[in-house]
C-alpha cells in the first residue's frame, strides 16, 4: 500500500472492507452450500464459506488455523465429498419437489435457535480473563501438543485410524453383497 493511497484509504477502512468481504464470503458460501438443489453448487458453496472462515480466523489472529482450515476442509473434505458425489451419481437422479411445510419447519426451527442463542449471547456478561498471555506462535501450539494435549494428540490419531479402516470397510465392502438388478 502506497502512502498516497494511505491518505485516502485508511487502514481501518481496508480492514473493514476486508472483514465485510470475508463475512460476505462466509455467508454467501454458506447459503450456496445449503440452498441450491444441485449438489455440486453446494460443494462450491462450502469451499467458499471455508475460505471466508479462514479469513475470519486471520482476523481472529491465527494464520496457522486459517491455513489448516483451507488445507483440511478444501483439501480433504470437499474433495472427498466430490468423490462421493461422483461415485453415487446423484446428478441424474430426479429429485422430487420439496415438501413445503418441511421447508418452513426447518426455517422455523433454525429461527428459534437463532433467536434463543442471540439472546443468550447478548445476555451473558462475557468476562475477560484477568491475566492474558499473548503468545500466538505455532511453537506454543506445538508445545501444548506435546504436553497438555499429548493424550488428545494420540487419541485423534487413533480416531483417524479407526475412521479410515472403517471407511475402507464400509465403502469398499458393504452393500457389495447384494447388487440391484442390471448392475455389472
Amino acid at each position, binding site marked *: 500500500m502506497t502512502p498516497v493511497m494511505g491518505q485516502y484509504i485508511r487502514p481501518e477502512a481496508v480492514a473493514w472492507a476486508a472483514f465485510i468481504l470475508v463475512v460476505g464470503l462466509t455467508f454467501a458460501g454458506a447459503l450456496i452450500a445449503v440452498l441450491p438443489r444441485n449438489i455440486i453448487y453446494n460443494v462450491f458453496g462450502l469451499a467458499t464459506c471455508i475460505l471466508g472462515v479462514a479469513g475470519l480466523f486471520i482476523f481472529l489472529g491465527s494464520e496457522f488455523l486459517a491455513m489448516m482450515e483451507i488445507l483440511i476442509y478444501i483439501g480433504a473434505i470437499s474433495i472427498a465429498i466430490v468423490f462421493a458425489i461422483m461415485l453415487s451419481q446423484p446428478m441424474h437422479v430426479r429429485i422430487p419437489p420439496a415438501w413445503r411445510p418441511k421447508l418452513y419447519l426447518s426455517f422455523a*426451527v433454525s429461527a428459534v*435457535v437463532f433467536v*434463543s*442463542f442471540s439472546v443468550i449471547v447478548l445476555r451473558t456478561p462475557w468476562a475477560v480473563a484477568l491475566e492474558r498471555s499473548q503468545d500466538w506462535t505455532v511453537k506454543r501450539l506445538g508445545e501444548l501438543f506435546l504436553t497438555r494435549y499429548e493424550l488428545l494428540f494420540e487419541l485423534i490419531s487413533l480416531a483417524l485410524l479407526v475412521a479410515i479402516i472403517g471407511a475402507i470397510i464400509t465403502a469398499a465392502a458393504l452393500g457389495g453383497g447384494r447388487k440391484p438388478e442390471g448392475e455389472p
Partner: protein
Amino acid sequence: MTPVAPNGGELSLALLAMGLPLLSFFLVFFVTRPRVTLSCAVSLVCSGLPLLAAIWLLAGHWRMEAPILWELTWMRGGGVAVTFGFLLDPLSLLMLCIVTGVSFLVQVYSLGYMAGDPGKAKYYAFLSLFAWSMISLVLASGLMQLYIFWELVGLSSYLLIGFWHHKFSASQAGKKAFVMTRLGDLGFFLGIIVLLLNLGDLSILGLNQQAATRLTPGLLTASALLIFCGVVGKSAQFPLLTWLPDAMEGPTPVSALLHSATMVAAGVYLVSRLFPFFQGSPQALGWVLVIGTVTMLLSSTMAMVASDIKQVWAYSTVSQLGFMFMGLGAGGYFAGVYHLTTHAAFKALLFLCSGVFIHHYATNDFFVMARSGARSLKVPMLSLTVAGAALSGVWPLAGFFSKETVLSALAELPNPAWLWLGLLGAGLTAYYTFRLLFVMWRPRRTQPPAGHAEHGEGGHHGAAVYWVMAAPLLVLAVLTALLGAAGPALESFLAWGRPLPPGAHHGWLVAASVVVVAAGAGLAWLEFGRAGAAQQGFLSRIPGLWNLFANRWYLDWLYRWLLDHVVYGLFSRLFTLNDRRVVDGGIDGFCRATLGAGWLLSLLQSGLLQYNLFTMVLVMALVGLYFLLV
C-alpha cells in the same frame, strides 16, 4: 334378684343337657353316618338324657328362690366380651323341658317316619344340631349367646327344611326361611349393638333389672323394637310370616319340632325372657300387641282356605304365635308363656298326627286323605281330634285354659277392641280347625283327587313303624289333655312361688269365648260336617276374598316382586352393569387409551431422519428459551 352359682349337680346336669346334642351331632355327622342304626341310637340317647336332666332340674327347682347363673368368657376382643353359660330360672327350666321333651318325642317318631330314607343319619345329625342350638338358646345367660344360638337354630332350620334338597321347592323354602329370618335378625343384631354400646351389659338379668333405669326411654323403645324385629322374623310374624308355611316342605317331624313347638316359639320365649325389659317401654309392648294381632288375624284367614294339612297347621301356628304376642303385649307374661307351653304340646301333636297320615297316604291334601280312609287310623285320628279341640279351645283341654288367660290379659286393656279381635281370632281358629276335623271324619267321595306328596316313598312300613310313630302321639295327647289343669301350678312356679295378686276374674269372658268357639265350630259343621254338606267353605263363594287368603294376602307376591325387581332387577343389575362398564370398563378403557398413546408416539418414529433432528434441535432450543423466559 341376685343370681347364685350352680352347685356341682346343677352344673353337670345343665352342661350335660347343653353338650350332649353337640356331641351327638359331631359323632353322627362325622363318624357314624354310614351306620344308620347306630346313628339313630346315638342321637336318641343324646336327646333322651337331656330330657331326663331337664325334668330333674325342673323338679329339683320347683321352688327356687334365685336364678342360677354360670358363665365363662367365650370370646373377648376389643372390649366386647361374649359369655357362654346358662341361666336357670323358672322360665328357662320350663322351656328347657318343652324343648327337650318335644325334641325327644320327635326323634322317636322320626325313627318311623324317616325309615328307609337314605339320609336318615344326616337327618338325625341335623336334629341333634338343632337340639343343641335350641337348648343353648333357651339356657343362654346373655343376649349375645342367645343371638348366636338363635342364628344356629336358623341354620338348623335351613338344613332341615331343605333336607330333601333334590326337591326344588324344599331348597327354595329353606333359603327363603333363612333369608327372611335373617332380615329380622338384622334388627335383632342392631338392637344388641345398641344395647351393648349404651349399656355395656348384655346379660339377661342385667337387662331386665337395669335397662329401664339406665337407658333413656327413646333408646329403650328403639332397642326393644329392634330386638322385636328378630322376633318377627323368627316367629313368622307380620310382615315376615310367609316363610313358615313354605317351611312345611321339610319332613313333618321337623315341622312339628321346629316350626310349631320350639324354634318359632323362640321369639315368644325371647320376649318373655326380656319381659321386664320390654315392660320398660310401653310403646314397644304396644307394637308387640299390634303385630301379634295383625298376624293372628291374617294367618287365620289363610288357614281357612288351605287344603294342605300341614299348611293349615302352619298358618295356625303363625296365628297362635300372634296370639301369644297379643298376650305378652297386653302385659300378660304368664298368658304368653302358658299358651306357649300348651301350644307346644298340641301343635306338635297335630303335626305328628298329620305326619302319620302323610306317611301313610303319601299326600298332603286332607281331602284326599279323608277319602282314602284316614278314619281307619285310630290313634292318630283320635289324637288329631284331641289336639284340634285343644287348639280351638274346647274345655277341658289345655288350649282352653291358656286361651282364657290370654283373653283375660286382653280384657285388662283399656281398649276393648283388642279383646274383640282376640275373640274373633278364636272364632276363626275354631272354624278352620273344625273344618279340617270334619273333613277328616266325614269324607266325601265327590272331591276331585288332588294334592301332592311330600313323602315320596310313602306307603306302609308295617306295624312297628306305625307304633313307633303312634307312641309319641299318645304321650302328647295325654299332655294336651292334662296341661290345662297344671295352669295355676305353672303360674306360681313362674312367679317364683310367690303368692299371685288376685287377678280380676271375668266370668263373662269364659262364656263369650265358648260362644265364639261354638260359633266357629258350628259354621264348620254346617259347611263340612253335616250330612250332605258340600264341604265347600263360604269363602269359596267370595272369590275375591278366597284369592286374597289363598295367596297369603299377596305378601309373597310382594316379596317376590321386591326381590325380582328391586334386589335383582334394580340393585344387582345396576351394580353389575356399573361394575362391568364403569369400574372395570373404565380401567380397560384407560389401558386402551395408554396403548393408543403408545401407538401415537411410535408414529413419531416415522423413519424420516430429519423429523427426528427437528425434534432434537427444537427441544434443545425450547429448553434454551425456557431459561430466558423464566
